[in-house]
């Protein structure tokens, strides 16, 4: 029977069709996520100044990457899901960064009284 799309003859567009992620790896990942959770809470009780926020976000990003790559199987997937999540991430960052950079540069042209 003919495959429908030429691409599907080369690989799966859709994702982890036939990859089985071992239960050990899954449990280890779960453990790592819990450890990171404890870490991030602990870090919030230490005064690191502005670094507190950075640490919290970096740990959150690490956790998200673990979930995406292992639980969601992006590690073993083909290009399409990777591309799509990258595009989504890019747009999210674009929205936040461009908006914030506008906010933070707002008094660039001097106002009267100077």
């Amino acid at each position, binding site marked *: *029977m*003919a*495959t*429908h*799309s*030429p*691409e*599907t003859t080369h690989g799966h*567009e*859709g994702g982890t069709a036939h990859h089985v992620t071992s239960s050990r790896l899954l449990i280890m990942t779960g453990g790592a996520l819990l450890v990171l959770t404890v870490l991030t809470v602990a870090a919030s009780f230490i005064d690191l100044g502005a670094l507190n926020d950075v640490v919290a976000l970096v740990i959150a990003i690490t956790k998200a990457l673990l979930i995406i790559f292992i639980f969601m199987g992006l590690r073993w997937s083909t290009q*399409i899901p990777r591309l799509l999540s990258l*595009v*989504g991430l890019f*747009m999210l960052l*674009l*929205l936040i960064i*461009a*908006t914030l*950079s*506008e*906010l933070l*540069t*707002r*008094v*660039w*042209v001097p106002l009267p009284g100077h």
Partner: protein
Amino acid sequence: MASVALPAPRKTTSRNYLNAATTVKSWLLTTDHKRIAILYLISISVMFVLGGAAAGLIRLQLLTPNNTLLTYDAYNKSFTMHGVIMVFFFLIPSIPAVLGNFILPMQLGAKDLAFPRLNLLSWYVYMVGAIFTLVALLWGGVDTGWTFYTPYSTQYSATAVIPVGLGVFIVGFSSILTGLNFIATIHTMRAPGLTWFRLPLFIWALYATSLVIMLGTPVISITVLMVAIDRILHVGIFDPALGGDPLLFQHLFWFYSHPAVYIMILPTMGVISEIFATFSRKPVFGYPFVAMSSLAIAILGFLVWAHHMFVAGISAQSALIFSFLTYLVAIPSAVKTFNWTATLYKGSISLDTPMIYALSFIGIFLIGGFTGLFLASLGTDIHLTMTYFIVAHFHYIMVGGAIFGFLAGLHYWWPKMTGKMYSEFWGRISSVVIFIGFNMTFFPQFIAGYWGMPRRYHTYAPEYQILNVLSTAGATILAVGYILPVIYLLASLRNGKPAGNNPWGATTLEWQTSSPPPTYNFLKTPIVTDAVYHFHLPAGDIAVDGHGDGQALGPGSAPATPALPAKTTDER
């Protein structure tokens, strides 16, 4: 497995998607993409008439400088409903949900979209959103302008903002379902041999559109939801008096609504590519560049939103950056325009109705696009923003561009959708009437805008009257122009000549099956062996109806000879 589309049934009375079942239930519960397209066509037409009626009220009010036909509030509600209906309920779904739904699976050689039930759901979601909006209309309407600017919309307006906000929120999900379906279908359901660079340009355009829909729509959904919530709580998330910032609202709104203008124009551009190829019998010049420019528009389109906020109080730094990026987004449009022009070079050009619309599109899009550059230029935008110059700019692109493209596509695929040929004579007449009416309506608005007439004005200074009278007169002609196609297209259902499978001699796959197509489009999955838009008669001898015995079929192997004028195709 057999790889050849069998000769399609020759008589239009054969079994097809229209007569497969005829009960109302069979329509309301259909999952056939073609039927859903028809449902959408009917719904958006109703919405267009409503939006057009609001436009009629606007134009009548503006006939004299201090007209009292409408009260202040009635006027404000008219242009708001006009904008909301035309943008969210007519233009955004128009080409994707009608022509895209119908044609996309066929151009891919697929039996249906990837998720037929989601497709039906999308129509129901659309209807729910539309009903919310119409209920709000009965409720007393809404007067914020289609942009819902805060704090007016959250704290001051005493009208039905919440129902309309929810209507927009809901209809967003219908676009999302359509976009999701398109992306999944294009990725996974292409006929064997139909590689990415053999895809028709309409598909490329819809792919880019779907990406924009998927990335932009959720942001507007959440933004209008925030407005609705804040109208209840009055915490002032966007109200400076309460610590919020209206510019945040504007950022979030335009993050979607600028890309949304490309949701409206990209599919049109796809239609134009198809039509230029077919009616000049030549491959679209620079195919890969035209295909890639769609993607470029989709991506660059996300980087320019703050050009709607140049005088809103954003930082000068950001204004400069966004102005710069806005210039860049014009380049892919330029690439398309030039390639379309070059496509005609040494072609075999036939001026049928779709082609007349497509050619008018170019002229009008040029004016609309270039006036976009006037607004992208910081210096001129500070003068022209919020005036009728902007109103003229976007009507040139949205009415003159997108609707001309929609009409071009509708006339182009009508024979495929219904199996009937409309009256070519009336088609040409109406395209000319619309062209004249359109320019007469909106060209004077450029002058009014340059002269300083602000938009959303219920009354205006007397010196602008002459321009407004011209504009209203033009709108009347335009309305007549829009009624004509309704009449002759509907008439063609009764007494139109049978269209035949491929009245225009086009090469894309949808023309390889019967008109109207059978429920699953193709009796056998077609196989594609060649680039799209290849009008050469291959060395072999493929029969006129496009079905050689045992020969692989597809774009490129289509016949170059069927081009008997449309009116005389009935014998085929």
